[in-house]
């Protein structure tokens, strides 16, 4: 059996989250009635012209900076000509000859670098909707800004492919370049897969896997494709250069179009748009206004708040979550320490998020589903000693479940801390009377039993007793002072 190297390159199309489309003044918005966000330019009416929206360039520049890419001071646009009903002008405006950005890189966990060949600006197409015999066209998406991110064929396994994709996805979401919603088609990836005998410098024929709309399926498609190619080669057959789709029911790729059917796009320079000039000033202003990257944020958590690497990475990895954490921390500082907020966030808040995801049946959650004020209340009340840590969890769960202010819950449920020394002493004395043999054992040196007594007090007071007061009084009583 010959061993093979897997060679994978990835092309990502990612919609830019600009307010307006890339070459016209229509809104870039999802979910309105069909053909609502349109104008002469993005529907290809006669005589309409494109004008570049600089906001799209600024967003795209964030990714160029985050991937340590070379930014071209002068780049240009080209027309890619093809006929399709959702392509109203008969051509797509893209950057074929000179993309604005090239030769970037990202680093995988293993330390391996994946090089990015180019990032180019272009426009999205509309949507064809097939209803029975009819085909309907919606141009709301037509002309929405896209970046196409093309990797070098540096990826050598399906796992690396998914890691690469997730890193890029994280970047575009954290940097607020894109909503990155795969279900809505904001973020689409195609994979070029080939195999070659281990160590051979000659690349095999590549197969492009297109139109796969989740990371999971893409991983499966690439896995299948690698095996299929090895099988074809072992049977002495050549690999056909082609485009393949993925059947998620069968977990198989299938042929869509061979190279012979490949279109000639007749690229040529877009005469309606002058060259795109990107100045140093423009790049600096993008740098200054750029949202924080997860890695940078994690470092900030470690340096400024002294959080452990595990905490810092976990909190920083989700953009909305880390914003929530930042806001919560600033609300409860300095009374509550960062580590307590971090524990609370990781254990309690993320638990709520997970429940929400399960309830909604989706991973796509764009905000923490629990009011910041309420979380701050719970932390502060705990800190003041109004409720115990154990009660805090219960209050939070109830408050989330009932969607009710934790203050009300604390009042109504009598969740306030029992910190009256006399009442606590009364409870303790009753317990020592009941457990006289344990008292004796304790007094004879079995100090471990202290915990037992605390547990009993908590049991009797339903966890409301202030642990500090309990400790003080319990010591006195047990030692007979």
């Amino acid at each position, binding site marked *: 059996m010959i061993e093979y190297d897997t060679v994978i390159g990835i092309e990502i199309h990612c919609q830019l989250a600009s307010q307006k489309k890339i070459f016209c003044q229509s809104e870039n918005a999802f979910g309105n009635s069909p053909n609502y966000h349109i104008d*002469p330019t993005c*529907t*290809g*009416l*006669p*005589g*309409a*012209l*494109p*004008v*570049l929206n600089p906001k799209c360039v600024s967003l795209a520049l964030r990714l160029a900076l985050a991937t340590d890419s070379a930014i071209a001071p002068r780049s240009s646009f080209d*027309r890619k*000509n093809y*006929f*399709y*009903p959702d392509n*109203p*002008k*008969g*051509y797509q405006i893209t950057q074929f000859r000179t993309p604005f950005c090239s030769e970037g890189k990202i680093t995988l966990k293993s330390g391996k670098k994946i090089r990015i060949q180019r990032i180019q600006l272009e426009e999205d197409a509309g949507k064809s909707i097939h209803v029975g015999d009819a*085909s309907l*066209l919606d141009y709301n998406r037509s002309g929405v800004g896209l970046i196409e991110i093309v990797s070098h064929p540096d990826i050598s396994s399906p796992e690396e492919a998914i890691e690469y994709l997730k890193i890029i996805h994280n970047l575009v979401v954290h940097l607020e370049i894109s909503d990155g919603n795969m279900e809505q088609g904001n973020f689409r990836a195609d994979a070029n897969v080939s195999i070659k005998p281990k160590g051979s410098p000659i690349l095999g024929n590549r197969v492009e896997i297109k139109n796969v709309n989740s990371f999971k399926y893409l991983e499966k498609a690439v896995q299948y494709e690698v095996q299929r190619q090895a099988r074809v080669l072992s049977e002495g057959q050549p690999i056909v250069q082609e485009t393949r789709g993925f059947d998620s029911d069968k977990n198989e790729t299938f042929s869509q179009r061979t190279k012979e059917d490949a279109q*000639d796009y*007749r*690229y*040529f*320079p877009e*005469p*309606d*748009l*002058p060259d795109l000039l990107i100045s140093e000033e423009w790049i600096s202003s993008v740098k200054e206004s750029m949202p924080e990257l997860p890695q940078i944020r994690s470092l900030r958590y470690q340096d400024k708040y002294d959080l452990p690497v595990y905490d810092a990475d976990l909190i920083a990895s989700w953009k909305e979550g880390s914003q929530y954490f930042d806001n919560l921390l600033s609300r409860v500082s300095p009374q509550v320490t960062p580590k307590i907020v971090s524990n609370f966030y990781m254990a309690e808040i993320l638990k709520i998020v997970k429940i929400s995801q399960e309830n909604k049946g989706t991973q796509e959650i764009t905000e923490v589903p629990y009011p910041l004020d309420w979380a701050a209340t719970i932390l502060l009340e705990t800190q003041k000693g109004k409720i115990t840590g154990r009660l805090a969890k219960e209050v939070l769960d109830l408050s989330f479940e009932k969607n009710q202010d934790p203050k009300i819950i604390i009042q109504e449920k009598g969740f306030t801390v029992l910190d009256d020394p006399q009442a606590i002493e009364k409870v303790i004395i009753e317990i020592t009377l009941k457990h006289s043999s344990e008292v004796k054992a304790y007094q004879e040196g079995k100090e471990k039993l202290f915990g037992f007594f605390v547990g009993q007090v908590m049991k009797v007071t339903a966890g409301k007793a202030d642990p500090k007061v309990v400790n003080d009084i319990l010591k006195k009583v047990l030692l007979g002072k």
Partner: protein
Amino acid sequence: MNSMKISQIQKMFSENPDLMTGFYENIFKNIESQNPEYNSITHVYPDIVKKRIEELSQIKNPQDYPLYGVPIVIKENIQKKNYSVQCASKILEGYLGQYDSTAVSSLEKSGAIIIGTANMDEFAMGSSNEYSIHGPVHNPFDKKRVSGGSSGGSAVSCALGFASVTLGSDTGGSVRQPAAFCGIYGYKPTYGRVSRYGLVAYGSSLDQISPFTTSVDDLDTVMKVIGQTDPKDATTLLHNYQGKKACDLAQIKVGIMPSLWSKGVDKSIVESINKTIEQMKKLGVTIKNIDIPTIHKCISTYYIIASAEASSNLARFDGVRYGYREENSQSIQELYTKSRSKGFGKEVKKRIMLGTFTLSQGHYDAFYEKGQQVRNYLKKEIAKAWDDVDFILLPTTPTLPFSIGEKCEDTLFMYLNDLFTVPANLTGIPAISCPMIEGDKETDLPIGLQFYAPYNEDEKLIGFAHALEQKQLFGHHRSDVFMNQGGL
């Protein structure tokens, strides 16, 4: 007696807006009676014009509107909302403008009245205005002859006095050549001087909306209105047309290339030009021989680039969203093929095929890329000429207006008719065609004289043409042709 000159019309109506109604009734009457013979107008809009007159009558300070009440006709490829933008093609039959082009809104903001649309070669492809779904346009000097093209309808409408100003589009000479054939001024501004927003694109890197007038002053006035930077067209220049510059003819040096027109140019054209050159010398203008060798490569370069861009620009006419659609189609491919095969005329299809070929894989470098190189080379050559001269003088056309039907099938002849006009489009420089005072001796047909100026020197060029006009070098007016111009 009234005239169609802008300044006089503007003055007359701003002093007395009530005169507009009668004046416009008269215009529409003239069009109704004369248009069947010339076929220069495709649609008129008397009802819209009526409303427009009412609107203009309400204006409190009409004297501040430089085109107050001035009648204008636009080529049928320039958008005005609810006006035909058929581009003389079956594929856009019945299609009306969905929005206003920037040129039209600028004109209207200045008080102009757009009365109708003009005939043209289909999608502005042609040099005789014979390739039109509306039929050929007839030359006002001899109805058996062509008007020139592709903006023939606009040229004839201006010459016949249907409007003070008419707009055409000039991609390779489509305004200057018919201006020469019809005895009027045709001006192609510097590329980017006038917004192309709303002009149906033919060759995007060459197209310019360009006016026809019967005087240089009118050209100057209309350029002040439409020669403005436009945020909707990223290729417009950053500053606006400032108005013609004063010109001292004794300080001017003009470059000529007699060897270029010694062959293949009608004798009478050469004679008229030489006569005008002598007059210019008498006025103190210095004449110098220059050489621009690459000019011989211009026609092939032009047809490669223009056709390539056209093949892409015309892809949107696919029968899907608007325009002609072949309903009996089983697949989207069939719908495309049938709609486009039937919707486009022969000349347009020829250029789409040519352009598709030159852009295709394996041919791009040999054709389109090479064409762009020639273009850059030509730019450098012409730029060098400006070290020695202020303007370059050329005939506008190598021939007099030919007979309708005579050259229809002679593609090479037609393409060569653009020989002297395309270099200005390829290099983006401004160029004007002026009607020389003496036409052809035998037929009295008009002859155009053309000047090029450096890039961005529109004001200087118009100032120069104005100075020559003042010295009576231009204006081949014949009362029977220009009867409406002076005799309303």
